[in-house]
């Protein structure tokens, strides 16, 4: 595991973005060589706050990606289990996930694999915990009755098969989950802990998220930042760039 500790949310996000950029460039994708980026899933399709809207506004509209190369689990599919199985097939067909990027919940879950989820689970329909429903209520104007109680999610096992996993954790409310994930043992109660058994994991967090860790853990990994920061060095020289950088989209 690599534990990357940055000062604030913005620095952590930027570090993660640069790392992904470098990984894509180093992978050197082409028409027959897909860099498959995995991301956790969420709400059903129709809803204005749906994952489709989220992905469009925050990612797809800023890049030129062929819509045919985007795959989002459809919560409105007629046969949900078939939808999940098909998703697993699509992952295999694309050559497996190269890099999976996700966050964790305060209860230590990865994607919607809530406490008690099998550590070898696959993509499936999952009932949501009350905590998750409460956390998502803000997308439904605080009306709990409107929050979906089920979600389609990739399984822990599915993510474990990715060649690399990056977990983003920011904020003090995630600190305890981070502690359980990396300083205690592997447990299905804190599903993120499963990645202790993954060969290539990176945890990117901010200072607040380290509040429950041992001081010596934090000092150890901060000491490694000299080496780790080289992972995000630009691979092309900035001086070679001719056109001015594009202004970011309003979000």
């Amino acid at each position, binding site marked *: 595991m690599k534990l990357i500790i940055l000062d604030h949310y913005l620095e952590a996000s930027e570090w993660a973005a640069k790392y992904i950029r470098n990984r894509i460039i180093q992978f050197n994708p082409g028409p027959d060589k897909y860099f498959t980026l995995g991301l956790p899933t969420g709400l059903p399709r129709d809803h204005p706050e749906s994952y*489709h*809207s989220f992905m*469009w*506004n925050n990612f*797809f*509209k800023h890049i*030129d990606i*062929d*819509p*045919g190369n*985007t795959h*989002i689990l459809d919560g409105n599919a007629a046969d949900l289990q078939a939808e999940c199985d098909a998703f697993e097939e699509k992952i295999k067909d694309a050559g497996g996930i190269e890099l999976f990027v996700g966050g964790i919940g305060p209860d230590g879950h990865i994607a919607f694999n809530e406490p008690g989820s099998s550590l070898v689970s696959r993509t499936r329909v999952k009932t949501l915990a009350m905590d998750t429903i409460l956390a998502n209520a803000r997308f439904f104007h605080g009306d709990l009755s409107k929050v979906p109680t089920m979600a389609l999610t990739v399984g822990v096992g599915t993510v474990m098969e990715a060649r690399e996993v990056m977990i983003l954790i920011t904020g003090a409310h995630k600190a305890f989950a981070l502690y359980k994930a990396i300083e205690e043992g592997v447990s299905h109660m804190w599903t993120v802990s499963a990645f202790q058994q993954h060969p290539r994991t990176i945890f990117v967090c901010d200072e607040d998220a380290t509040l429950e860790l041992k001081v010596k853990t934090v000092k150890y990994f901060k000491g490694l930042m000299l080496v780790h920061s080289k992972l995000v060095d630009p691979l092309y020289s900035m001086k070679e760039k001719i056109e001015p950088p*594009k*202004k*970011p*989209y*309003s979000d």
Partner: protein
Amino acid sequence: MRGGQDSVRAPVLRFTNCRLLRAGKLLREDLWVREGRILDPEKLFFDEQRLADQQRDCGGCILAPGFIDVQINGGFGVDFSQATEDVGSGVALVAQKILAHGVTSFCPTLVTSPPEVYHKVLPHIPVKRGGPHGAGVLGVHLEGPFISQQKRGAHPEAHLRSFEANAFKDVLATYGCLDNVCILTLAPELDRSHEVIRELTALGIRVSLGHSVADLQMAEKAVQSGATFITHLFNAMLPFHHRDPGIVGLLTSDQVPAGRCVFYGMIADGIHTNPAALRIAHRAHPQGLVLVTDAIPALGLGNGRHTLGQQVVEVDELSAYVAGTTTLCGSIAPMDVCVRNFLEATGCSLESALEAASLHPAQLLGLEECKGTLDFGADADFVLLDDALHVQATYISGELVWQAEVARP
């Protein structure tokens, strides 16, 4: 969305590197257009799994809905109130020329004229979609002859009329046919005006109060009968008085029916209204402000003498007077000049200034679903402007119809 296989195959245009005016804000977004309408890119991406066929770089410009001029009497030598042999080509000439001012839709305005003129001219100004040939005609604005003698301004006294005898029948007899009309200015103090206002409103024609000596109470009654617009606020009406605000008082009246907005036209040429008065009106009721040019045939021609309706006018730089008097008879400031003047005089936001020339006139005419907005499904009529609000390019239905000559680097 227009259905059928063909529309799905139509090319998708993506205007990028621009700032869109959407929901009252300038956002760094792209504009997607297909078949002349603004498209929702998210639906295109997920439902149709398609990307844009062509991209247009807007050079960092502001992309705003095309301007809508609801009061323009002519321009470039053309006088809409003249019963010429070829009214249609006169309208077409003006429609084509105002594209350079960022106007994508307009309402040709006829001033007080004898009935023969209306009967001859009106059938030749049909509602028409805009395009490379020129801005779209949304309908005719009839300003007069049912107006006050005292406040006639530049309108010829001989042709003023009243409808006290037969109310709406008089109106029909005067104009002939109202099919192409979308706005009608009248003075509500005229006898039986409320009947007329109600009939016109029932036909979908926007009734405007102007050239009138009505007090506030009379004006409020007119609004309750259906009037929704005020023609060039402050001009040709009683001045604001603290015990009887007159028509001006409608801006803050509490007698306006709930859910209704009283719109008011303002000529922001720097001459018709003192900037301080413009600011008072804007601050009192910003949502109702509609920028109009009230342009006369001398627009775009330069100094000298020209005809307006049945009278002769004298032009001197940006001022136009009834020949031999000091009565203003209309403006010759183009719409984009008015928008810039308005922005400077009021110190308002860019978004407010742009909405006053696009969204508000569309709302007045009940067309805000497809005009004056960049929402999905609306007609793709828009302008590219630099930060100082100079028009760089005009588009109608997603097609380039005018471009500034000096190319931007």
